[in-house]
């Protein structure tokens, strides 16, 4: 284990960005963007989690095996989302009765 020490400045900057994004989410929640409501909220959330994973969890400075673990996990989350949404998005294609 090689403990990669980052300057505190980076943590504070990331923290500030995260807080700003939180405020942004709240602000956007009051605007009516139609179908873009969810997409906007999720985009900000994904951006925030990427920052947490890269900097707070030190993945940016980790060996490739760690990257493989992270990418693998995200890919598996993708499987869950894609195949589940595959159901929801195609239910209306066919009508019965």
């Amino acid at each position, binding site marked *: 284990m090689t403990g990669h020490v980052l300057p505190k400045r980076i943590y504070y900057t990331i923290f500030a960005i995260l807080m700003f994004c939180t405020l942004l989410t709240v602000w956007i929640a009051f605007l009516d963007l139609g179908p873009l409501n969810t997409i906007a909220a999720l985009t900000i959330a994904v951006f925030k989690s990427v920052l947490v994973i890269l900097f707070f969890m030190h993945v940016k400075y980790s060996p490739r095996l760690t990257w493989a673990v992270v990418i693998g996990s995200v890919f598996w989350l993708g499987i869950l989302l894609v195949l589940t949404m595959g159901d*929801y998005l195609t239910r209306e294609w066919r009508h019965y009765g």
Partner: protein
Amino acid sequence: MSTGTVFMPPRHYLNDGYGIRSWLLTRDHKRIALLYLAAVTLFFFVGGAFAVLIRLELATPAGDFVSDETYNKLFTMHGVMMVFFFLIPSIPATLGNFLVPIMIGAKDLALPKLNLASWYIYILGGLFTLYALIAGGVDTGWTFYTPFSTVSSTTNVIPTALGIFITGFSSILTGLNFIVTIHRMRAPGMTWFRMPLFLWSMYATSLIMVLGTPVLAITILLVAVERLFHFGFFDPRLGGDPVLFQHLFWFYSHPAVYIMVLPSMGVVSELVAAFCRKQVFGYGFVAFASVAIAVLGFLVWGHHMFVAGQSVYSALIFSALSFLVAIPSAVKVFNWTATMYRGSVSWQTPMLYAIGFIGLFTIGGLTGLFLASVGLDVHVTDTYFIIAHFHYIMVGGTLMGYLGGLHYWWPKISGRLYNEFLAKLSAGIIFLGFNLTFFPQFILGYLGMPRRYHAYPPEFQVLNVLSSAGASILGVGYLIPMLYLMWSLRYGKLAGSNPWGAVGLEWTTTSPPPTENFAESPVVTWDAYDYQTTVTVES
């Protein structure tokens, strides 16, 4: 067979410290394996007791032995105990814990304290679930389908769910430990493709545990939150969708079937090689088939939802993907058979279990193809056909492999031999009892008998009586090994290092092994199952 004098090593992991503390605070993976063995066996017999009550009720068509509500609790608790507290930890936590470090030539798992912690977490989860059971039980079925589990059921859903939630973490940590160990702790010369196939299957199993179990944990949490605080995840009245629960639940619970059966396949590969004295046919194919099953297993969960209101297009895709899993599974079955072909097969107890596994798993797998095809599945959904199918996989597959492995490595674990006659006899009884119990259920299901009812039309009685009779034979078959294995601990003949004349690092150290596994750290210069060059037989 071992030659020369067979002796009990003066120092081994079992006599390295006595007393309850030396066990409950141990970091030795072999002792932790035995802690798991004891716990898992306990839960197996609790789950088995529920099965006895279920089969007693179903001996007659009328619902006369227990009330309908009690019956709902019986099959729920049977499923919860067997799936989450027996089948999933069975092979990984016992045989896996014992063998993974030894098979790669390491002193212990990479994270020994975490390993002990996994056992305590497992026990804690088990206690929660046992509490739920004593406090009146739970009646949702082991699948906890919403909206019944979140809106209607008045039984102990939360404590049971919490128990499963907690136990899930033990599963995740065990998987993590195995993955790290296999990556980092292999002895010099132990390359990935020299690893015994048991390790490939444990690695694949660990991947599923780490990737799948968190989804189950979150799903259970959502059920608890909806039940307690009425958040609308699954309840349509609150804007939720009950089918979403099924998506999330089966995303874990279909791969969980491979958490149960992959380790068993790993055991069978070891047994077939050892008792045919041959390299497993197509080693690379069998190794990659394990990984392929682990990955493909995550793409098929929708086959549990063909009649649940899922989109028909989704159903077709899930159906096609489900058929794909048959390919790596069949690769394994064909390769074991090809290994046996012209091998010098010796018919000792573990091999009987291995052959039992191959036959029963094949039946379970092929009937799985029936269920993967949408049209036929609609006919047999929620009937005894399903029950028969998954018991052929989980009991005929997992349990056969578990018992085969337990018998094969018992001399290594205990240093002593069991009674071969009784062992063969009980293997036969189990095979017979199993088929008598579950084969009639295929017919019952095809004829339309639904699962989860405590009463049924009288024309189904003959087949149900056969099934109940089979279950009693099966029960006897499970009790006999308990007795002679316990007996052998004290009175069994000494085994020596290598009673089967098998190759593999675990047979090069004493039986039982020393706490540090090997007198000196091994260096590996040979492939797995190298029966051609030399068989080193030490006393």
